[in-house]
């Protein structure tokens, strides 16, 4: 049985708590804390980690680490401060990796 985690600043994530997802509050500037939490989540039985785009932008290396692993899936979601486009960028990165250049979304 797996669980789902949501990481980010409190304002962006508290709503998910009501749905039964586990929320982990990481405020701005707590970069090291974010890395620590993420590692420990990956080791536990969390299959999906949703992370706000703003936070993910702070720890890109850590987010990339899980790209090739089967578990967990690290998925970017927009935070309360708005959509930064990081999430779409992550998808484009996959396309670029697979095709060699971004042939689908290059507008």
């Amino acid at each position: 049985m797996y669980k789902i985690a949501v990481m980010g600043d409190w304002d962006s994530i508290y709503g998910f708590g009501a749905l039964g997802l586990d929320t982990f509050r990481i405020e701005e500037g707590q970069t090291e804390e974010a890395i620590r939490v993420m590692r420990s989540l990956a080791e536990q039985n969390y299959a999906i980690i949703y992370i706000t785009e703003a936070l993910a932008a702070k720890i890109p290396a850590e987010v990339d680490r899980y790209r090739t692993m089967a578990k967990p899936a690290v998925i970017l979601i927009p935070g309360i401060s708005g959509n930064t486009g990081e999430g779409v960028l992550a998808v484009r990165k996959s396309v670029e990796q697979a095709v060699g250049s971004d042939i689908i979304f290059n507008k």
Partner: protein
Amino acid sequence: MAATNVNPTRMELTRLKNKLVTARRGHKLLKDKRDELMRQFLLLVRENMELRTRVEEEIREANKRFAIAKSGMSEAEVRVAFMNPKQEIQLEMDTRNVMSVDVPVYSYQTRTSDENDVYSYGYAFTSGDLDDGVEHLAAVLPDLLKLAESEKSCQLMAAEIEKTRRRVNALEHVLIPDMEESIKFITMKLDENERSSQIRLMKVKDMMLENAHHYKERMESGT
């Protein structure tokens, strides 16, 4: 290149020829795998993008509501409201094999039988916008899981495609041409050896005849 440091022997030639056959077959298979993976990947990535736009839009809506709700309540009140969630999600993860890539398939179960039973607070002290926000999030949850599924699949497949493409290219542009060159080198060398031993035999025969009959001496004496 590789051709210069192979043993020009028949055994090596046979070995290389067998290797070349295997390499060609491997190359063809890997190429097929790459093409099929690519097809699946492109389908998936389009779906991924669609889902993402939809989910992001919904979350934005929810966040808007939460922002309004928070403006009318203190942070402590919001915290209390969400302190003890009613609902819990138990996620099952299965894997599906797409061209040797194990992609995840998620299914989930909520703790209470009613999926919409997500309000962890009495309505007395909270703003109505908070309910709206939670409702939006609850509505987007299935899509959110689907997004996780397809995005993870995309990531895994992208990595696999990259690997397969490298292998195909290595076989096509390095390994197979090298082997062909080596085979050509050995064949030439063996042919050359054969010709040289042929010539040697002819020469030896001439010499032996000369020794036996002394043609040259006879020519000079003119008889």
